[in-house]
């Protein structure tokens, strides 16, 4: 894929880097100023989940084309402990890490498409997309 941006997530400082790079990539595509904030915030939430639960991981972001529409796809991968119950993790207010429990469900609300796959003991992958209107 062209224009792929990868950010390795190893500390809380990488959260800021990931959301800045994501915003820059989305800006190239022509998203509105509100959508740029929305995308950067969603990246911030999923990047923090990596730092908090898996310690290390990676976020990759690229521009995608599907028919006549274009958008941004963001994938967060880690080899952390995994999520035992995804349905529970997707509920507002549920957190095992002492947070507000709005990270995953909040990021889902911010994006157009959102998918979590996770296997206990081997890691979690979050894929989210936002389409240009």
């Amino acid at each position: 894929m062209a224009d792929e941006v990868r950010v390795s997530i190893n500390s809380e400082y990488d959260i800021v880097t990931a959301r800045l790079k994501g915003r820059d990539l989305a800006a190239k595509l022509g998203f509105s100023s509100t959508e740029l904030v929305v995308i950067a915030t969603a990246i911030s939430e999923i990047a923090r989940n990596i730092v908090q639960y898996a310690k290390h991981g990676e976020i990759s972001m690229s521009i995608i084309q599907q028919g006549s529409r274009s958008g941004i796809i963001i994938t967060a991968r880690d080899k952390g402990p995994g999520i035992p119950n995804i349905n529970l993790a997707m509920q507002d207010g549920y957190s095992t890490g002492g947070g507000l429990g709005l990270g995953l469900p909040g990021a889902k609300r911010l994006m157009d498409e959102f998918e979590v796959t996770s296997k206990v003991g081997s890691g979690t992958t979050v894929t989210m997309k936002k389409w240009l209107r």
Partner: protein
Amino acid sequence: MLVPILKQGDYLIASVQSELSDEDLLKLRDELVKRVGELRSRGVIIDVTALYVMDSFATRTLRAIAHMIRLRGAETIIVGIQPEVAFTMVQLGLKLEGVMTALDLEEGLAYLQTLHTSKRR
């Protein structure tokens, strides 16, 4: 990135200059809670005009700062939340419950002054 904290009369003004890491936010919290006592401030304004991401961690920390400052006997007002940021916070489900907000620094200062004039009566 450290957040400069200025003393203006009875008030402290913390102006966020750029994006903040989680640690920067926690440092700001500790610094404000300490200085409000040292300088005997009666109000704190946190200007977040320069912040373009207010995620769940930032919101939780700002809320905690406001509550801690209140326990120290002063009031906190968050000013400068940008329209895009407000939109995103609502979508995410983030609330600044129990925290005062104002449009900008000027409004924030006026708000604090009103609070203290009414308290003196």
